[in-house]
């Protein structure tokens, strides 16, 4: 039976199920057992499963990733958490040189079942060092899988699939999703890695999104509907493996492609998606494809600048309109300086 849960409750439930089913699973990360429980996702788990299986760690992201890898080699299934992806940059050597490659470089003899949860920060002045979205980096590394759930039920099912997988997984949670609610099935289930989801069918344009941008894409589709433009929204769910077939099939029908991304534009995932379509057949595209993403800039802190930095549904709408020869007045895209766009909803007050 499905019931409404928030994204963070769904993750909490997934972690509890994973811990319950397999004694090899353990959780570790800065603040994992603390009273805030990683935005609620780990609340109660230390109490229920014990401090030996749910524990905090020193501020040593690099070594602790190595520790997680070593424990995986020794038969455990670690789930590690970083409260911001930016902090995990200290651990890139272990993630990329080690975790991603041990299976291949030891001829299949070693395996590293390791889930690294990383939060993608946003809003309320997270600024240049607490709000990066570097999923494109990890997708570029052979041997990693990269998961970006958009809904509570996918969050649960993809996390359980990630824990069950025998490979290192980069599992990215957008901070603006934790409080979003949706129906979540009870009990244990997995959502397969590598398969996109058609979040809304449509025939006029394909909007490809991941994670939080799926919500903006769905909003854009609603804004387009009254103009008699039926947008198909594809939620990629995982970007590595990337479900090219679902994207191409959609563009074959719609002839138009807009990619909505969280990361900065150049050398991000948008380029890969556009390229895969163009490589299949550039004549599928009735008009130049578009990428909607933050500009190639660090994230500014001032809310006024952040408002200008992040694209929203209306930017997707404008991109679609442009493809259809319906221009948009740029002024319509510029938020009022006083607009409170740095929080997902008014209940979200304060820095996190």
């Amino acid at each position, binding site marked *: 039976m499905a019931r409404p849960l928030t994204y963070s409750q769904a993750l909490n439930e997934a972690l509890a199920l994973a811990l319950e089913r397999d004694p090899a699973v353990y959780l570790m990360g800065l603040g994992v057992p603390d009273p805030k429980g990683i935005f609620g996702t780990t609340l109660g788990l230390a109490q229920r499963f014990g401090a030996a299986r749910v524990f905090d760690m020193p501020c040593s992201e690099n070594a602790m990733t190595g520790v997680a890898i070593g424990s995986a080699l020794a038969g455990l299934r670690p789930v590690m958490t970083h409260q911001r992806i930016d902090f995990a940059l200290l651990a890139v050597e272990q993630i990329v040189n080690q975790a991603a490659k041990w299976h291949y470089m030891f001829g299949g003899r070693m395996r590293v079942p390791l889930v690294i949860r990383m939060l993608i920060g946003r809003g309320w002045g997270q600024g240049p060092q607490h709000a990066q979205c570097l999923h494109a980096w990890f997708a570029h590394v052979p041997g990693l899988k990269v998961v970006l759930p958009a809904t509570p039920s996918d969050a649960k099912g993809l996390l359980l699939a990630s824990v069950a997988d025998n490979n290192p997984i980069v599992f990215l949670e957008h901070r603006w999703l934790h409080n979003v609610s949706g129906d979540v099935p009870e009990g244990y289930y997995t959502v397969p890695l590598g398969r996109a989801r058609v979040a809304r069918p449509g025939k006029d344009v394909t909007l490809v999104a991941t994670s939080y941008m799926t919500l903006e894409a769905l909003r854009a589709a609603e804004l387009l509907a009254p103009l008699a433009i039926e947008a198909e929204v594809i939620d990629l769910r995982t970007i590595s493996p990337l479900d090219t077939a679902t994207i191409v099939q959609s563009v074959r029908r719609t002839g138009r492609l807009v990619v909505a991304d969280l990361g900065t534009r150049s050398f991000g995932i948008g380029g890969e998606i556009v390229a895969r379509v163009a490589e299949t057949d550039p004549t599928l595209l009735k008009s130049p494809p578009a990428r909607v993403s933050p500009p190639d800039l660090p994230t500014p*802190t001032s809310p006024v600048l952040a408002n200008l930095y992040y694209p929203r549904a209306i930017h997707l709408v404008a991109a679609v309109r442009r493809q259809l020869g319906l221009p948009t007045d740029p002024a319509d895209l510029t938020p009022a300086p006083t607009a409170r766009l740095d929080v997902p909803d008014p209940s979200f007050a304060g820095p996190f």
Partner: protein
Amino acid sequence: MNLTMSESEPALLLRLYRELVRLRVVEERIAELYPEQDMRCPVHLSIGQEAVPVGVCAHLGPADYALSGHRSHGHYLAKGGDLRAMLAEIYGRATGCSRGKGGSMHLVDLEAGFLGATPIVGSTIPIAVGAALGAAMRGEPRLSVAFFGEGATEEGVFHESLNFATLKRLPVLFVCENNLYSVYSPLEVRQPPGRSVRDLAAGHGLATASGDGNDVLAVYRLAGEAIARIRRGEGPALLEFATYRWREHCGPNYDNQLGYRTEAEFRQWQARCPLSRARAALEAAGVSAAELEAAELAPRAEVDAAVAYAKASPYPNAADLASDLYAAAAPAPNPELPPHSWPAP
């Protein structure tokens, strides 16, 4: 626990006390205004920890460098940073010290020698070492100070930085404020029992000392000795100070109700308030109540004016978004640069 003072010290202590009060008043004002939701960035207040920045920075001039991390308001102000530019920055204004791009976690004031604060734990420690290297290579008699918490000593970069600074005998002072917690995580879950940052650092071969971080005169004395040593060219030093954060890790509130630390522990540390202790010592040394009250009132006008300035300041505009991605072309090489006086190791 009591401050001890020689005859000549009341004037010094009064000077330090004024600065302690100033830091406290600024941050209490931030805490008061934060719920208005106009400071839309994380703030990490150092209320309770003021004695360390004040005691250390009293020995520094604007030519000296300082760097800090997420909890940097005190270091910025004690180092001489511009209060108005700091508040404007927290308010996200174009007049902010980082023109609104950085917020509370990215303060800078070049004129004051405050080279920058950034909130990745430990990451400005090597940058402070590099600034010392730069000064040394250019033959400038500057000193560089890295401020950080005990959590930062768990990052490998801390050790790498100490090793290099010691290897090259660089003019850098490492200042660790050990406030027992990293966010809600107590020392027990992060460091072996009995660990002292000072002993840990000593393995690298630099000079070390530790002291009471809530006793501004104790901080002042230890820092004075360490800095004199560094200025004499005897290489880097590390100071560890025991202190305590009063408010929540991030934000304006108290958070003992969360249960990650006991009310008793909190009270014990509040009883060791660096301001109250300095005040008591000043009273005991005969400084008049009127003089003390004047010291306590003095910063209020400055802070009122700075808040008004910040709030009245313009926001950045759309053109500012994309500015400053890249620095402009280099000026021609500067022939007036002082010759390299730094001896090869």
